[in-house]
């Protein structure tokens, strides 16, 4: 049994964890919940040897232990799926699964190890994934699965998963749950972190809630209603998560006809009205993300008849898409979302430089005014305009990505991929509110999401996809979770799917 005894961790003036005492028992799946920045990942990093606790101790079977490095954690029997994806794109699936393992021998290509890797992969439903595939060629979801496989293959007594499902779709989540269940059944202590409350209730028998680094609740999940859970997390009762649907206009802001991307999408078409939120639901590899990328101009080989505000848009160039009024908000914040190294101000004005300059010269006073206004609109602390974006939590970073769209001239359509990836319930409601307020101003939103609850909650219309083809289309009120899940996991009998 692994115990934390009054563990604290501070970063300078920031107290990330304060006197947290917890125990993780074998055979129990233990959930840790909390807002963005509550201290969940900090706790994980202390257990996995990446951070040293400022005070307090870690006990195993009653006696104190030291975990100075991630290698030490591993030797000790703790295995972790970190929040930030940590696979190496240039290595093969096999090498990634055994990467950093203390078990790998000097000559690391062993058939016994291959067999074990294959077994774990098939447990996760990836038996047809070749071990020698370079990870570079895999989707985000597959990469996450490989990272999970790495944690599972190590046969640890304590398995920690920090938001493992943020990039997974429901089919894969089901398989992951089975794998976690079998590890639990073998007597492993599992620590599970997620912002998706459904998962907590489905999987975990014990729940701990952290708020501002302090223990707010710990006890059986069954004794905790959804409302109580949210109240513990936020320190206030939950507001409505999803904003009421607005009025959608009649004229089409975006029409897509016969959109094709070789090997990804076949004949996708859709029509999004001004003020409408349309969600494309689909698993990884379904082509949903590719629709977004194509409309944003990032797929050079996309073809199709796309019109924005009645004008024809030639695909294949981000610049042209932007010129037509289509802008992308990516859920992949670190690679193509925001500028992590630049200041909040720089991020907020990024999309509107031409509007804020005259004759190529920036108007300094305007910049600050503009940034303050947009920051306020999306709920970012406007006294921290000089702070760097990387100092902000994921939720606040995502708000930055939205904030820069405020007051941007000439934008009609927002295309988004996973707009709330890894964002807590509080911030999530804010983001949904923002999306709706953009719609009220007449923008159209086309989004993808693998979170079915979100799809049902926010969209005016839903399109489901499977293997590059549309499966179903639903208007307001027609869509429910069950039908969507069925669509995106089972293809209709007549459509075999592009890639089958």
């Amino acid at each position, binding site marked *: 049994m692994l115990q934390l005894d009054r563990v604290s961790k501070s970063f300078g003036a920031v107290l990330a964890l304060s006197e947290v005492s917890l125990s993780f028992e074998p055979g129990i799946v233990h959930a840790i919940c909390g807002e963005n920045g509550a201290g969940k990942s900090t706790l994980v990093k202390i257990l996995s040897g990446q951070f040293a606790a400022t005070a307090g101790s870690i006990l195993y079977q009653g006696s104190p232990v030291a975990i100075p490095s*991630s290698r030490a954690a591993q030797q000790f029997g703790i295995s972790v799926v970190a929040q930030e994806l*940590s696979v190496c*794109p*240039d290595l093969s699936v096999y090498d990634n699964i055994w990467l950093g393992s203390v078990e790998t021998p000097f*000559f*690391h290509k062993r058939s016994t190890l291959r067999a074990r890797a294959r077994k774990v992969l098939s447990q996760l439903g990836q038996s047809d994934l070749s071990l020698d595939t370079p990870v570079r060629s895999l989707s985000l979801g597959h990469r996450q699965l490989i990272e999970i496989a790495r944690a599972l293959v190590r046969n640890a007594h304590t398995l920690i998963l920090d938001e493992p499902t943020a990039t997974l779709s429901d089919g894969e989540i089901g398989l992951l749950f089975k794998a976690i269940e079998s590890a639990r059944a073998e007597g492993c202590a599992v620590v599970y972190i997620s912002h998706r409350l459904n998962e907590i209730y489905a999987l975990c028998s014990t729940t701990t809630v952290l708020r501002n680094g302090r223990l707010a609740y710990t006890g059986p999940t069954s004794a905790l209603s959804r409302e109580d859970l949210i109240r513990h997390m936020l320190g206030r009762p939950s507001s409505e998560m999803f904003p009421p649907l607005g009025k959608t206009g009649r004229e089409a802001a975006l029409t897509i006809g016969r959109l094709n991307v070789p090997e990804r999408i076949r004949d996708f078409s859709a029509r999004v009205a001004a003020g409408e939120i349309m969600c494309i639901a689909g698993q990884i590899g379904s082509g949903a993300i590719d629709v977004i990328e194509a409309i944003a101009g990032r797929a*050079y080989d996309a073809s199709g008849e796309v019109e924005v505000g009645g004008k024809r848009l030639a695909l294949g160039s981000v610049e042209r898409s932007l010129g037509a009024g289509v802008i992308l908000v990516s859920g992949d914040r670190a690679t193509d979302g925001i500028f992590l190294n630049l200041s909040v101000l720089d991020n907020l004005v990024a999309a509107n430089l031409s509007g804020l300059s005259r004759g190529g010269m920036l108007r300094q006073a305007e910049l600050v005014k503009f940034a303050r206004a947009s920051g306020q609109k999306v709920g970012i602390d406007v006294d921290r305009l000089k702070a760097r974006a990387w100092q902000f939590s994921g939720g606040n970073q995502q708000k930055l990505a939205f904030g820069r769209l405020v007051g941007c001239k000439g934008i009609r359509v927002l295309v988004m991929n996973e707009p709330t990836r890894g964002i807590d319930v509080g911030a999530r409601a804010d983001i949904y509110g923002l999306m709706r307020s953009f719609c009220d101003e007449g923008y159209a939103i086309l989004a993808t999401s693998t979170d079915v609850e979100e799809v049902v909650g926010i969209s005016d219309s839903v399109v489901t996809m499977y293997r590059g083809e549309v499966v179903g289309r639903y208007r307001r009120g027609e869509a429910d979770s069950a039908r969507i899940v069925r669509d995106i996991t089972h293809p209709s009998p007549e459509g075999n799917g592009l890639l089958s």
Partner: protein
Amino acid sequence: MDARLSGVLKSRDARPYLVAVPILLAVLAIDHGQGRVLTLSSAFSVLQQFATIGPTALALGLTMIAREFDLSVAGMTNFAGCVAVLCGVQDPLLGILAAGCMGLVVGAAQGFLTIALRLSSVAATLGGLLTLAGAGYVITGNATVGYPRMDVALMVNSPVLAIFSLRSIFALTTFVAAALILAYTRIGRDLIATGSDPQAARVAGVRAGLMVVGVFAVSGFLAATGGALVSYSIAAASPAALTNTLIPAVAAAIIGGVSLSGGRGTPLGIAGGVLLLSMLRTGMSAVGIPPFAQDLGTGIVLFAVALADAEHLRMRFYELQRIGRKRPA
């Protein structure tokens, strides 16, 4: 079978070898059947060039695979040459040993600085480069130092099996060793992981800091032993740049498929890059192309490589095609 062949042809390792084919054909065409190109002596010459640039290119390439950049190799080859020539009068092996140890230690020190202070390695090794250069001036007293062992000088360059020499055998050995280590051992895997995504590698349990220190030490060692052998072969060491290896080494590594953003590239590819450049030089001077045209030829080949590798080229072609298609309609 077909798929595998096309896989090999598309791989980054194969690229330099593929580029080498048209170059060879072009040189043969210029030669016009006078038999100046496909001779044992030009093969020997290519391998001699390989021996000069190779170890440095490998040293630099390995650090690039680890997402670092060892600018100091340029100073290391020179300084090591001075050390070897000064220490190796009695026993040439002693000179090489001294140079190798120096390279190992200085390399490791630079790696340590990079890790401990979280410096960019370009900056750390720029400091290293200038310091090594200065140290070279000091130990030689700003004068070219001759190496009195003419027997050694002639031996390291004398042909073995018609096309090899001790020097080129050494260079080839380092490439083979590096290729084996990278492909088959945990160290190689961890090195690639470190370059691919250092934070991820660390989280997974790789001792990424150690890998960086190690790769700089190896880089220092390779550049130093390579430089020592070069100095032996010309029986001299000079603090002023004796060999201009940095630029060909960078070019060879990148042509060979090593990426500036780490994690990609193999010794086989780097060897291809070095061979390509050596062939270009030897081939062009074998058929008597004047120096300015050699510069032009090298530049054109480099441009071709840069274009073949360009990320957005396919996209631009697609656009052109698209415009072309639209016009008739």
